[in-house]
């Protein structure tokens, strides 16, 4: 039950156009809004870690500048908070 509420909260926070709280959020906000809004990220919520790695790699092609350390922190954040539903919050599905 507690988990369900938490998931719901996460889910609604995300759909309102805000990133969930967590380590790396500030970095993501700083680095990922130079060219587009956070909506681009939120719309891709649910992809795997490997795919987030590829996305960040693609963004470097478009001109994103990050150090290796920053890149890792960003990918950690994205795959933890915008990763596949089951990896994000146990096995239950928010819908």
């Amino acid at each position, binding site marked *: 039950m507690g988990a369900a509420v938490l998931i719901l909260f996460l889910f609604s926070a995300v759909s309102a156009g805000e990133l969930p709280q967590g380590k790396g959020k500030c970095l993501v906000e700083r680095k990922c809004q130079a060219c587009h*809004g956070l909506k681009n990220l939120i*719309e891709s919520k649910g992809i*795997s870690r490997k795919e987030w790695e590829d996305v960040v790699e693609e963004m470097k092609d478009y001109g994103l500048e990050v150090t290796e350390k920053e890149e890792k922190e960003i990918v950690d954040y994205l795959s933890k908070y915008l990763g596949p539903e089951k990896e994000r919050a146990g096995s239950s599905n928010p819908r």
Partner: protein
Amino acid sequence: MDRRDFLKASLFYAALFTFGRGPARAEAVPIPGKDPRMIVHSPRFAVMETPLELLRKYEITPKEILFTRNHFPIVGPNSFMATLSPIIDDSWSVRVTGLVERPGKITVGELKKMDMVEITCVLQCSGNGRAFYAKKAKTPGTQWKYGGMGNVRWKGVRLSDVLDYLSVKPSRFVRFITADGKDRPLIRRGPDFVHSVPFHDAVRRAILAVEMNGEPIPAVHGGPVRLVIPGYYGTMNIKWLTEICLTHVETPSKFQQKAYRVPLFPVKPGELSPRQFTPKNSRPNWRMRTKSVIFFPREFDRVKSGNVKVRGVAFNDGTVPIREVYVSADRGNSWLRAKIVKDYGPYGWYFWEADLRLRKGKVELLSRAIDDWGRGQPLDGTSRWNPKGYEWNGVDRVELEVV
């Protein structure tokens, strides 16, 4: 950009940003004049989808509801595109360069005096339907459902006529045309949005369009001149055209080499990353795959049991005509041939209808198109799952509760 422009852009941006954050509030459309019911996927890039309820109302998709897709923020040097009004500029020119005896340049004013053709085409984002791949595994990018397409009437001058008019005389080594438009990245190091398409095919199909639906092309849709390649995915139809370069190889732009591509063989999620795309293992989003969409009835329609006229559209890359459309009300066990009631030529929507008897309760309707070459739609569209979620063309499905 002068100071006033900058101020205007910043104000506009600030407004966008504020609206973008409002909890659960409907977002302001980032292009004034677009229907407020449009689904805004990215305010800063002005990426908007047409809801299916609106899309199905018109045979030719009006500019107010036609989807939009841009690749850079619509501010600063790109703010010229952020309007539904046309860009009136007869001195706007398109350069023809590359492997030619004589490079040339043609203005919009000159184009307007030449012989024009009118072609109705499906304009479709190669990511249209991406959301449906999530049934297998979600892919990154705009989660388009149906509304990343429209049926549009273009008017313009054939590319072949432009090449003749300018006497550029292409070399026999020309294999691609590489087209560029006025939009550009805001970041210095960012690649430009450029695409290459096969020369032999482009020369037979492409036009330099100056009108859309009987009016000068709205700025957001690529005016004053857009390269329209009938039957090709939208991304190849370069907007705000400034240059056509005749080349021997495809552009190195990341937009051609790492994105807008599908693998040449089936891949499982996680098996091949877009970073590994090469010309040998993948191809660009060029000719459109055969597809059909059920317009009526949809999930949100109230359908009474008895006779129901199911209707929708079908299209392909226009190489050969759509031959048949079938519908099923029993999960594909039996198929009824629909009647094609209207078409707009090889590149537009084919409108079809089928009379079905539906009983009360749950029913799943399917539609499937086949063209003269037998090219159709997979029963399970996710069998074409690909890392960037392009070119969805699965059999269309509607789950209904008939009352």
